C-alpha cells in the first residue's frame, strides 16, 4: 500500500493517538474525534474475498455475539453459465467456519461478504417508533439498546436482512461499524482480520483516505440500488446475480 508523505502526516498522529488510547486501556473517544469531520462507509472488494470467515469470527469475538445471529456474514454464490438469474447460494453458519470445498464445476463461484450498509436514507431508522435506532452525524447507523422496545419493525424494514433481535437482550442488534473502534482511529474488527484486504473501512469525508481514491477509480455498486437507501457499503466487482 503506497502511503504518501501527506498521508503519513495524517496517519501518524492518528495512530499515535490510537496507540495511546489502547495503552491507556480506558475506552474513551479519541480526544480529537469530531463527528462532523467524518462520513463512514465500507469497501468490499469481491475479487479479493476468499471466504475464509475471519471477518465473521472477528466480529463475533469483538462484539460478544450470540450463536446463530450475525452482524456480518459471507455468502458463496455459484452462478451457472446458462442462467445468471438463478444462483445457488449458501452461507453455512454465516460462513463463520469457512465453506465446504467446492468441486470444479461449470459456471462461476465467488464470495460476497454482507453486513449493515449504514444507509444514509436508512429505512430502518425511518420506521423506528421511538427513536431507538438512528444515523449518527458521522454516518453510522446505531441502535440505542437501552431505549429499544424490541418491536422488530426495523428488522422487517431492512432490505438487506442485517438486523436481528438479540435473543437475550430482546432488543434490536446489528453491525455498529465498530463505532467504538473507528472513533479511536482503529479500523473495524472485520477489516482488521481480513487477510486479503477484501474489506476496507473508508472515510468518505477524508480526501486523503486511500480507499476514497479507490472508489473514484473503480466501478463500484451497492446492494439493491433500486431500494434507494443511500447504502454506503460499496462493492467492487459485484456480479449481477447477487441478491
Amino acid at each position: 500500500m503506497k502511503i504518501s508523505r501527506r498521508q503519513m502526516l495524517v496517519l501518524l498522529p492518528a495512530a499515535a493517538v490510537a496507540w495511546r488510547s489502547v495503552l491507556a486501556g480506558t475506552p474513551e473517544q479519541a480526544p480529537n474525534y469530531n463527528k462532523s469531520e467524518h462520513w463512514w462507509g465500507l469497501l468490499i472488494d469481491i475479487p479479493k474475498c476468499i471466504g475464509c470467515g475471519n471477518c465473521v469470527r472477528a466480529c463475533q469475538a469483538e462484539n460478544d455475539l450470540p450463536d446463530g445471529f450475525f452482524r456480518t456474514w459471507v455468502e458463496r454464490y455459484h452462478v451457472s453459465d446458462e442462467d445468471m438469474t438463478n444462483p445457488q447460494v449458501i452461507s453455512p453458519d454465516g460462513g463463520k467456519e469457512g465453506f465446504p470445498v467446492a468441486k470444479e464445476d461449470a459456471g462461476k463461484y465467488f464470495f460476497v461478504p454482507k453486513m449493515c450498509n449504514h444507509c444514509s436514507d436508512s429505512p430502518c431508522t425511518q420506521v423506528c417508533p421511538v427513536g431507538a435506532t438512528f444515523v449518527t452525524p458521522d454516518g453510522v447507523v446505531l441502535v440505542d439498546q437501552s431505549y429499544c422496545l424490541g418491536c422488530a419493525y426495523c428488522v422487517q424494514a431492512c432490505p438487506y436482512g442485517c438486523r436481528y433481535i438479540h435473543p437475550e437482550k430482546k432488543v434490536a442488534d446489528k453491525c455498529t461499524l465498530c463505532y467504538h473502534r473507528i472513533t479511536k482511529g482503529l479500523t473495524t474488527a472485520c477489516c482488521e482480520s481480513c487477510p486479503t484486504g477484501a474489506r476496507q473501512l473508508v472515510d468518505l469525508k477524508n480526501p486523503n483516505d486511500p480507499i476514497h481514491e479507490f472508489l473514484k477509480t473503480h466501478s463500484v455498486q451497492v446492494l439493491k440500488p433500486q431500494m434507494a437507501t443511500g447504502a454506503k457499503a460499496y462493492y467492487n466487482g459485484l456480479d449481477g446475480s447477487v441478491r
Partner: protein
Amino acid sequence: MNVFKDAGHLFRFAGLFVLAFLVFLIVRGFVVPRSFGQYGHYRGNAISDIAAKPVKFAGHEACESCHTDVLDVKKAGKHAHVNCEACHGPLAKHADDPTAMTPVKPDTAVLCARCHTATAAKPKGFPQVDPEEHSSGVPCGTCHQPHSPAIDAGGAK
C-alpha cells in the same frame, strides 16, 4: 347560561382530558432522557455509550510498535498485508499489559487450512493447495514460516 347548565357534564369530561394531558406533560418532563434530541430524534448520549465499549482487537499498529522484528520479516514476504490478529486472534488485553496475558501460538495445521485449502470457489490466482496431497497431514508450520511463508524467499524452516 342555560347551555352551560345542561352541558356541564361535557365540560367535566373535557376537564378529565385536560387534567390527563397536564399530568402527561409533567411526567414526560421527568422521564424523557436529557440528551434526547441533541443530534436528532434519539438519545444523544447513546453515541458516547456505544463508543465507550471495550476494544478486543488491538490493531496491527499496536502489535508492530513492539514486535518490530516480526514486522521486518513480514513486510518483505507474501503475508505483508495480513494483520497480526487475523491469525493470532484478539489481543488488546496483551497490548495493554504484555505480561498479563501471553498469546497462545495458533496451530498451523488448523489455521492455514482456513485460507489455503483449495476449492473451486476461491479466486484462481490465490495460493491454495489440497492439504492431503500437499503435505500428507504434516502441519504447515513444519516447512513454512507463517510470517513470511514462501519457501524460495527464505521462508523455509
